[in-house]
């Protein structure tokens, strides 16, 4: 089974996106960003944008996907699709890709997408570029050019896989531009049933838990207040949480703080933690060793608070505040209060 042989490449058409959902079944914003990127590519190629939507019930999502740029929605509904199951979703997508033969397939570079899409590429024998930050069509060859950071963001590499179909990429959340919802936009919804074979050799999902605490979700946060070794303990992080809550942001940490046991691992930013892409990153007492910088250098505005103004973080920062974080942060909170700024936690 190989659809991607040279001889039938020409028969592959259209740009697909794999929709991403939130635990409550609503569409994740990255789905709209993928559609925005897909529309630009489709216009260039003169083809359609299709969105695959896999879930328990996608009746609400399907028209939303159309209003945001999909020409067709492939809707697959099954109770087992409520929670992420790599094998099950891969089996379904592999079958649908072989049936409808897209030229390009885009997924989200989320924990789900980064597990599912490489499995799919592995099965289909086609190229996949992870975590793309730029996508375009080569004017001469019509091939998809995929740009991504490599070596911790020190190099931007442009990659193509034009000899194989579909050309696949995962795209980081918050990088591409979504289109405004257009309620009068029309499109077609194609319902596809799950087959018995799709459900073979799939894992069992025993339990799925969404954290009640809203300040852990670093990947979607627009603002992150992050603390390092200088925060000195869990009490120090409470101060950072207070600032984060005023700003409507999440709390991040350096590895030094996580390894000291002051805050849980899902908060860790950096090479062995998470890569974040916030609009505003406030580093409090984080010196900025390379493993940390790698994880946050793509944030739009970087603020550093440190006693020592010669640290790499203070040098990289757009705003560098010299001083003791335990004195400055309470004053910042007071100042925000004076200006009536209180977003009260990270609303998702």
């Amino acid at each position, binding site marked *: 089974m190989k659809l991607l042989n040279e001889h039938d490449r020409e028969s592959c058409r259209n740009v697909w996106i794999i929709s991403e959902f939130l635990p409550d079944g609503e569409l994740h914003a990255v789905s709209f960003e993928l559609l925005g990127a897909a529309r630009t590519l489709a216009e260039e190629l003169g083809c359609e944008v299709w969105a695959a939507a896999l879930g328990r019930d996608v009746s609400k999502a399907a028209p939303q996907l159309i209003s945001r740029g999909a020409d067709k929605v492939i809707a697959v509904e099954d109770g087992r699709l409520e929670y992420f199951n790599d094998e099950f979703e891969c089996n379904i997508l592999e079958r649908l890709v072989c049936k409808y033969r897209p030229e390009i397939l885009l997924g989200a570079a989320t924990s789900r997408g980064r597990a599912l899409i490489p499995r799919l590429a592995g099965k289909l024998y086609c*190229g996949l570029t992870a975590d793309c930050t730029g996508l375009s069509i080569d004017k001469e060859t019509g091939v998809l050019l995929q740009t991504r950071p490599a070596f911790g963001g020190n*190099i931007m590499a442009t990659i193509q896989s034009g000899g194989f179909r579909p050309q696949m990429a995962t795209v980081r959340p918050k990088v591409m531009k979504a289109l405004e919802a257009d309620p009068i936009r029309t499109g077609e919804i194609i319902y596809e049933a799950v087959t018995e074979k799709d459900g073979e050799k799939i894992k069992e999902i025993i339990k799925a838990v969404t954290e009640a605490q809203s300040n852990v979700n670093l990947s979607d946060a627009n603002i992150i207040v992050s603390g390092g070794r200088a925060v000195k303990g869990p009490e120090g992080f409470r101060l950072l949480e207070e600032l984060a809550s005023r700003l409507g942001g999440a709390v991040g940490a350096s590895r030094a703080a996580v390894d000291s046991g002051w805050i849980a691992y899902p908060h860790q930013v950096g090479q062995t933690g998470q890569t974040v892409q916030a609009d505003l990153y406030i580093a409090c007492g984080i010196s900025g060793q390379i493993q940390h910088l790698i994880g946050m250098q793509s944030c739009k505005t970087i603020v550093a608070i440190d006693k020592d103004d010669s640290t790499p973080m203070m040098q*990289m*920062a757009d705003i560098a*505040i010299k001083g003791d974080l335990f004195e400055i942060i309470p004053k910042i909170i007071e100042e925000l209060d004076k200006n009536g700024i209180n977003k009260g936690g990270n609303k998702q």
Partner: protein
Amino acid sequence: MKIAVCVKQVPAAGDAKINPETKRIIREGGKAVVNPFDLYAIEEAVRIKERTGGEVIALSMGPEKAKAALTEALSMGVDRAVLLSDRAFGGSDTWATSYALAKAIEKIGGVDLILCGKQAVDGDTAQVGAGIAAKLDIMQAANVWRIEEIGADTVTVKRINERGWDVVRLAYPALLTVVKDINIPRIPKLRDARAARRAEIPVWKPEDIGADPDKIGLKSSPTQVVKTAPPAARGAETLKIDGSSEEAANVFVSELIRRKLV
């Protein structure tokens, strides 16, 4: 229990230096180390073996010098190691790499569990683990944070995601990719490190694993690098704020408002 653990040698991160013009990291080539996430995979594999008995085999693809990474794995308690090394493997992308590793795992035979790090820190793709699982057509779980139960027929694990976690049960053979927090890798004892240095590490070539020559190496890799460029500069000017805490906080918050960041 027979466990294979995949190990990659990567350049160490080096010291952080910032280019004052572009506000970007100046990269210096560090020495070669075991991919940090793989250390957790090695440790977890050895811990499982210590509980259930069996064998752990470390597997790497790379140049001859990648034997150093396997030696480190051996010093941590891995029973034996295999290096896939040949010019024909050179330039393999994640697809071709996972194909070769999957072939080697088939050749090892009877493997119940395959452990990988969450991703390699040079490429950061996280694609090889899932690629191996795809080629072997076995169950996979990425971002494994805890192994809850090693059963006779299944393994139960906790995976983390952006919003929380889930618990899933996979039938053997299964592939897991692990995150940093799963354990604290041991520091090898001197005696074990010495023994590891003496251990023989066989080198397998494409023909040893029955790899299709049209599926390995640069020319068979679906992805090709077209060009590389330095990343765009981050704004050059740093606004420096000091003075008393009150003043600093006042200037800072006005700046946040002016820049429409709050």
